[in-house]
């Protein structure tokens, strides 16, 4: 059986608790359900473990995303085995413990699910044989720990702690990802086996410093190394089983695990020593010192964890094989004693209702059994002989003495180590003395405390027993595991080392004794030190961090708010500035200011026409605050543009422009009824200047480009149209044939746009309420004559006449200027005139007022004409045309394009009327207006 299933089991196990919860609310059953698969996993580990002990490295791989180099590759060697045992073993103990820790009303099922999720992720980290896969699991541990820390999410502290842990470790994870990708880049593979033997290659790479920094960023954040340590104490908001599991035994160990894992690939350089050892030492000392001053039981343990992680890191940083062995050893030891301590702290919390050491005193009397367990574990933490902590600490002291990296300053290392030891003893002493002795408990929420349920103590007992067993008989207990783990860490032969209690009377032993007595001394001086500490400026890392994050958020809001300031002007200015920049950078590079061809001769009328156009455009702009005048000037511009089209051989355009112009004016007039007629000047001078500059640059740029293109030679696709218009499209008006045939699809889209616009406008207008003016711009009430007789009577016969013209324009469109669009506009104008003259009510008595179907029919007709060509096996919109002969009447020609054009016509009529008639109806909804 493949060992890789191990990793899968906890994930599957995460499904169990919710499943069990469905059928039973028995908490024990639930815990059993949760424990089932991890137990299976642990049992399944036995056989592979034997192979590992025999010196094998088990590999298993399944492809996942080979193109990324990401495969589901797993590796079980000594190191992985060690961690797997830790993760599974302590995990099971924690499940047992949590069974009694969680109160009945808590959602235990969810808790176990999260816990197992985490377990799986952690197993994944330690057994990954692919660095990318490892990063993947790495981040999963962050995510699941987020859920676990935030389990009591009704507490602010839990939420914030969870987010902080997630943010910091997430950041580290991203750095790690970058580092791993770089390693992959250098090595050419993410396979761990490959990477581990490519240490020299990596270290020779110019990317090495960067890789190292990125990887270490991941390590340090995860393992709470200085200066990223601050999240860990706040993660104590988690339920204690979580702390025992994640924050002592496993997750925080992921960082140092990575140090061990990549030890062959990355270690051995001065840079490694400089960063890793320094960070480790700083963390060791800082954590140890601060731990003493914590009044929160878990806070003390948290800082002590930080300190011990620093110790391990420091050991790895020493670049010595023996130190690495010691580090691995200490990982094991720390996991056992710290997990038990957390559990003990949890028991105390559980039984007393508080974790404040200033209130918890003299528990020895109430819960002596627990006290013994806790005291043994603390002693192990302090490094008291005959307990496991002592052994690894001895090795640590020895290694600090061996190191010569610092040259003349090498004495600093043992000094620092001893100092750390001193504090370590001091806070351990505090944990023992302050909690179990030191007078009577003060004002406990639960009084009197008593021993916890029997089975809640079992996990602690097991762990403490391990501490003692390892401390007394290291060679029979841990030696084998340590050997394979260390071997896997070093990736080669093991150095000489001895696990024994007695190495003779040597320097490390002296250091241990110094630490022991120094620690006791310091603890005895605690009152003075507490006073001193209290007087230090309080620096809560959480507040600082949160302050930073909030400041960042505010800064982000400010930046965003400044850019996205809700001002259309500024958005438009950005866009136009970009355009202006493009023009300013590109146009000076133009090879000249005139194209190859000569200009057409100028004539007076055109000049005058242009002059009027320019004047009108400028006036529109200048007078824009006098809105009606501005509209009049705009109208002149429209007229002149139409004339320009006439002048330059584009009668179709002129017709369209003229009719669109009328509809636009109607539209604007309708809108003006609800708008202020005049506004005051309100742009600042700077803004006006800016806008003038933008306008000038863009206008000039566009003009220059237009001029250059107009005077240039163009060979285009147009001759084809001129040539094929008659034979292929059946019409002589090439513009129209392009519209309905060559590029009929554009027109199809265009009428769709018109139809959609009408729909959108209808939707906008529905249930819109606007206050209409009761008086005109001069403050007079409106005239009473709503439907002037002359207008009414004259406009009515104009309707059939205009329709006739529309038919005329429509029919000739294919061969001469005109077409469905203009015809449609004429029709709509004629109908709109009826609205203007006689009112909505009158018109709607005479024809259906809903133009939706007209639009739909129009587009549908155009579309169906297109689809019709499918019948004949041609693509969409293929047209056909033919001559017909009727006796007496003569020849005439029909093109399917005319059907299409009819669609255009209908759409235009429908859309224009849908827009304007509904806009016109708007005022009817205004109840304040009299007589309407």
């Amino acid at each position, binding site marked *: 059986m493949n060992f890789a299933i191990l990793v899968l089991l906890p994930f599957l196990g995460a499904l169990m608790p919710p499943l069990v919860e469905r059928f039973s609310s028995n908490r024990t059953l639930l815990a059993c359900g949760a424990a089932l698969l991890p137990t299976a996993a642990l049992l399944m580990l036995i056989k592979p473990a034997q192979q590992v002990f025999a010196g094998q490295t088990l590999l298993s791989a399944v492809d996942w995303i080979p193109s990324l180099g990401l495969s589901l590759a797993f590796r079980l060697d000594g190191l992985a085995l060690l961690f797997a045992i830790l993760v599974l073993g302590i995990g099971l103990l924690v499940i047992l413990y949590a069974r009694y820790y969680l109160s009945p009303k808590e959602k235990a099922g969810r808790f176990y699910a999260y816990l197992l999720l985490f377990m799986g992720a952690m197993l994944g980290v330690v057994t990954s044989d692919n660095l990318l896969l490892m990063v993947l699991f790495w981040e999963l541990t962050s995510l699941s720990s987020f859920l676990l820390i935030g389990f009591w999410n009704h507490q602010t502290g839990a939420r914030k702690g969870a987010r902080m842990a997630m943010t910091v470790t997430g950041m580290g994870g991203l750095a790690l990802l970058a580092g791993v990708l770089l390693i992959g880049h250098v090595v050419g593979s993410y396979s761990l086996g490959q990477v581990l033997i490519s240490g020299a290659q990596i270290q020779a790479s110019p990317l090495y410093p960067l890789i190292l920094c990125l990887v270490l960023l991941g390590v340090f954040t995860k393992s709470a190394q200085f200066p990223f340590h601050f999240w860990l104490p706040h993660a104590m908001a988690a339920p204690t089983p979580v702390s025992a599991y994640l924050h002592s035994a496993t997750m925080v160990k992921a960082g140092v695990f990575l140090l061990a894992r990549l030890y062959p690939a990355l270690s051995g350089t001065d840079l490694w020593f400089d960063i890793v050892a320094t960070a480790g030492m700083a963390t060791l000392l800082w954590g140890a010192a601060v731990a003493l001053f914590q009044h929160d039981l878990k806070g003390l343990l948290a800082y002590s964890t930080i300190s011990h992680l620093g110790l391990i890191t420091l050991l790895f940083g020493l670049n010595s094989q023996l130190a690495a062995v010691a580090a691995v050893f200490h990982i094991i030891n720390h996991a056992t004693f710290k997990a038990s301590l957390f559990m003990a702290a949890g028991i105390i919390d559980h039984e007393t209702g508080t974790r404040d050491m200033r209130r918890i005193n003299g528990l020895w009397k109430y819960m002596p059994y627990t006290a013994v367990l806790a005291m043994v574990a603390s002693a192990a933490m302090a490094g008291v002989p005959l307990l496991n902590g002592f052994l690894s600490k001895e090795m640590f002291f020895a290694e600090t003495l061996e190191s010569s990296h610092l040259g003349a300053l090498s004495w600093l290392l043992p000094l620092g180590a001893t100092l750390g030891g001193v504090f370590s003893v001091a806070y351990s002493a505090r944990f023992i003395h302050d909690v179990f002795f030191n007078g009577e408990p003060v004002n406990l929420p639960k009084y009197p405390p008593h021993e916890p349920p029997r089975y809640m103590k079992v996990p602690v007992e097991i762990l403490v027993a391990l501490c003692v067993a390892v401390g007394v008989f290291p060679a029979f207990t841990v030696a084998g595991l340590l050997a394979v783990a260390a071997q896997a860490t070093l990736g080669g032969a093991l150095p000489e080392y001895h696990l024994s209690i007695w190495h003779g009377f040597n320097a490390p032993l002296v250091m241990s004794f110094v630490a022991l007595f120094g620690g006791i001394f310091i603890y005895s001086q605690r009152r003075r030190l507490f006073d001193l500490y209290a007087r230090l400026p309080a620096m809560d890392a959480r507040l600082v961090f949160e302050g930073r994050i909030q400041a960042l958020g505010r800064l982000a809001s400010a930046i965003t708010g400044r850019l996205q300031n809700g001002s259309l002007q500024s958005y438009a200015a950005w866009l136009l500035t970009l355009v202006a920049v493009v023009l300013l950078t590109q146009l000076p590079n133009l090879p000249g200011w005139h194209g190859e061809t000569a200009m057409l001769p100028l004539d007076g009328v055109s000049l005058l026409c242009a002059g009027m156009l320019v004047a009108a455009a400028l006036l529109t702009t200048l007078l824009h605050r006098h809105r009606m005048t501005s509209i009049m000037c705009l109208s002149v511009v429209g007229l002149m543009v139409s004339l320009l089209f006439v002048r330059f051989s584009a009668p179709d355009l002129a017709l369209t422009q003229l009719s669109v112009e009328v509809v636009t004016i109607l539209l604007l007039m309708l809108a003006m009824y609800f708008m202020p007629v005049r506004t005051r000047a309100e742009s600042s001078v700077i803004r006006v200047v800016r806008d003038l500059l933008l306008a000038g640059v863009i206008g000039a740029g566009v003009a220059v480009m237009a001029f250059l293109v107009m005077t240039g030679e163009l060979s285009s696709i147009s001759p084809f149209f001129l040539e094929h218009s008659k034979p292929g499209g059946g019409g002589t008006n090439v513009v129209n044939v392009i519209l309905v045939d060559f590029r009929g699809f554009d027109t199809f889209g265009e009428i769709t746009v018109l139809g959609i616009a009408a729909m959108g406008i209808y939707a906008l207008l529905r249930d819109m309420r606007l206050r209409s003016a009761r008086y005109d711009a001069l403050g007079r009430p409106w005239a009473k004559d709503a439907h*002037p007789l002359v207008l009414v009577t004259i406009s009515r016969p104009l309707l059939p006449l205009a329709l006739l013209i529309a038919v*005329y324009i429509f029919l000739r469109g294919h061969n001469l200027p005109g077409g469905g669009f203009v015809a449609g506009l004429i029709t709509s104008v004629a109908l709109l005139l009826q609205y203007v003259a006689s009112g909505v009510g009158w018109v709607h008595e005479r024809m259906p007022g809903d133009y939706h179907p007209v639009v739909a029919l129009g587009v549908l007709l155009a579309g169906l004409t297109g689809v019709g060509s499918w019948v004949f096996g041609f693509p969409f919109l293929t047209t056909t045309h033919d001559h017909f002969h009727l006796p007496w009447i003569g020849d005439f020609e029909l093109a399917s394009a005319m059907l299409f054009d009819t669609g255009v016509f209908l759409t235009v009529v429908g859309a224009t009327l849908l827009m304007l008639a509904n806009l016109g109806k708007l005022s009817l909804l205004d109840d304040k207006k009299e007589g309407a």
Partner: protein
Amino acid sequence: MKALFERCFPSPSLSLLLWLTWLLLNGFSPGHAVLGLVLAVLLPLGTRPFWPNVPGIRNLPRLGGFILVVLWDILVANLSVARKVLGPLGDMRPAFVEMPLSLEDDFAIALLTSTVSLTPGTVSADVSMDRKTLLIHALDVDDEQALIEEIRQRYERPLKEIFQC
């Protein structure tokens, strides 16, 4: 037969106008004559609701005469307006003149106001809401009464005869 005719041409004069317009636009050809006829039937039928009660033209020759008179007036009077526009402005005697209407049909009134406006020197400024009075602005007038009389004679009466109202 007559019923059919009336059904096809609810308003023969309009149909005629449309037919003529069509032929004017397209030039005369048999095809267009037919097509124009079709349109001349269809369009009035289609737009019929839009002009509920237009009086039929009862006196076609009179209409022709009326049109010629108007055209002539336009031509002649334009000259006088031109003189007034170009001449000294101080001599001008503009006036608002209220003319009582004897026409009763909206369409005829509208035609009258249009005619008044087209003929130089006068613009019909408003029709009272009870349709009894026409307000005319005249550019240069000596005698309001004479103006009213002239309009009545030259335009109102013929219109009355044409539409018999």
